[in-house]
């Protein structure tokens, strides 16, 4: 088990190094001169002169050899220096410090909601296979998988906001400032974020339970005369959770992706919105930092998931 954990962590570190390379080289190997992007982004297309470009290159160390540039960049990243935003003319680390908590709070609740409900609905659907609950869950999970986040947001805003006036349609307040308001403002964003992972988890759980249900050892359990409830909770549940746990890692990715759209629609000042507006402004420093931080979070979550996987499955534990 210890070897397994260490190997998993080392693999995660390797992937993180590769992630940093991707982020770094995305800007340098692809067509488009970062200095040009920088200058034109800063001045809105005017004042692009060769002197200005040289100046910028020198300022950001872009005139140095690529490995040196990478090394300097990594050194900066490790010490928390993600560079200066072109658009905001502000330290990117500081920008993130304001916005990540918002995204993480909403994301955290979305993960909790989607995981718990997804496992529950998937389990119920599989156990009552072919019944009306199963049909309903299956159909709703299809809807959840295929509905664009913005369509869901439109429907929610139109019905709950414009027509019923139950919930505010824009903005977000932290819970420590105004708890009631915060809850109200969180409902629609969390629904938008949680829908896809919920559908994914429910489907995975359903098929996983159905598969476990076909296993020989479940037949053995029935042959002992156990009641159905015991068979489900003792014999089926743990086994079917094993593949579902990996979905949590994927769900976190989906939620960060969804946050870009959800925060734009609801006018929430989180990382997603920051990234969306930065792309528009070609503020690559912010995008670079954002992509790096989000990828890091996802890698770390996946490491944790894989380790807990070992806890669920004794076959891995003793490998």
């Amino acid at each position, binding site marked *: 088990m210890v070897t397994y954990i260490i190997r998993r962590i080392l*693999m995660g570190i*390797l*992937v993180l190094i*590769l*992630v940093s*390379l*991707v*982020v770094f080289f*995305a*800007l340098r190997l*692809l*067509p*488009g001169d970062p200095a040009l*992007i920088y200058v034109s982004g800063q001045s809105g297309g005017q004042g692009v002169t060769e002197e200005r470009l040289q100046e910028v290159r020198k300022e950001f160390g872009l005139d140095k050899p690529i490995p040196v540039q990478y090394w300097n960049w990594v050194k900066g990243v490790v010490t928390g220096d993600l560079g200066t935003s072109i658009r905001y003319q502000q330290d990117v680390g500081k920008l993130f410090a304001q916005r990540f908590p918002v995204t993480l709070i909403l994301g955290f609740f979305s993960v909790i909601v989607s995981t718990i409900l997804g496992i529950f609905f998937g389990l119920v659907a599989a156990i009552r296979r072919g019944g009306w609950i199963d049909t309903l869950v299956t159909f709703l999970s*299809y*809807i959840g*998988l*295929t*509905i*664009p*986040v*913005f*369509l869901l947001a*439109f429907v929610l*805003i*139109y019905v709950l906001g*414009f027509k019923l006036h139950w919930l505010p349609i824009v903005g977000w307040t932290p819970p420590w400032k105004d708890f009631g308001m915060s809850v109200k403002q969180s409902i629609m964003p969390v629904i938008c974020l949680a829908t896809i992972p919920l559908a994914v988890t429910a489907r995975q759980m359903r098929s996983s339970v159905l598969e476990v249900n076909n296993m020989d050892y479940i037949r053995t359990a029935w042959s002992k005369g156990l009641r159905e409830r015991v068979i489900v909770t003792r014999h089926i549940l743990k086994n079917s959770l094993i593949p579902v746990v990996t979905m949590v890692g994927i769900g976190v*990715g*989906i939620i*960060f*992706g*969804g946050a*870009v*759209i959800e925060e*734009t*629609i609801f006018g929430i000042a989180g990382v997603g919105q920051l*990234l*969306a507006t*930065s*792309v*528009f402004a*070609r*503020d*690559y420093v912010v*995008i*670079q930092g*954002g*992509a790096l931080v*989000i*990828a890091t979070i*996802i*890698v770390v979550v*996946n490491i944790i998931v894989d380790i807990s996987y070992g806890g669920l499955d004794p076959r891995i534990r003793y490998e």
Partner: protein
Amino acid sequence: MSEVFVMDAPETVAAPRVSEWKRFLKILFQRKLVVFGVFVLLCLVLVAIFAPLIAQYDPYKNDMAHSLQSPSSQHWLGTDNLGRDVFSRLVYGARTALEVGFGTVAFAAILGVILGLLAGFLGGWTNAIIMRAMDTLMAFPMIVLALLLVAVLGAGIQNVIIALGVATVPGYTRLMCGTTLSVRENEYILAQRAIGAKSLRTMVRHVLPNAIQPVIVLVTTMLGNVILAEASLSFLGIGIKPPGAAWGSMASAGFRDLGTHPLLSFAPALAIMLVVFAFNMVGDGLRDALDPKLRGKL
């Protein structure tokens, strides 16, 4: 030499011949939602091909005098804030959706299949390098990776295809690698070595055809997912640039009039959902129809 020694009657009959194709179609169309999906996709393709014939108006021409009109017999779905006919724009949007969908999937699937086949068949270092690279790409949410690439490359249909293509390659690679590994375990691959076939021949002629089936299913569902992702990028204003008719940007443009003219954003958003839903249905139907557990059972 020969026959004389075979005393048992020769086996002339195999199992009654059931056409693979017929059985495939039968299972595929068993579910009504698959029929629905195929119907929707057929309509989509026809609409995209015959867009100029179906649309009554120029989708790009502004007509400020007739902006934000409600649906009528002239404008079936009304007009947008620039006075453009919503229905005509929807029809042309089908072209964009299919172009991005097929372009991205073709690019990503071909690359993914090759990488996955190599990783799975050769194993060892090739596998380690390819799969760690894929893990790396998988660490980014699809939209975030696309944002990163679009930020560098700029918006536009080609760049969207490249960005989404790169973001979706790992899915194909992993799937292909997995199926290749399991196909490689089969004795018929060992049999190829035993009769003296070279690796390349075995890989292309025996592993590839047996490992590709799940990729076909993935391609179908990914067509939907990619169209959805393109819509999301266009919605953010960084995919297909206006005035190009993309459903995502139409939905986004209509958002500011949501309270008064909900159809402006609902219509394109529903079109996206319908198409994505259809691709998912057909993908699921294909998976059932191709399922090796069902095949050869009877």
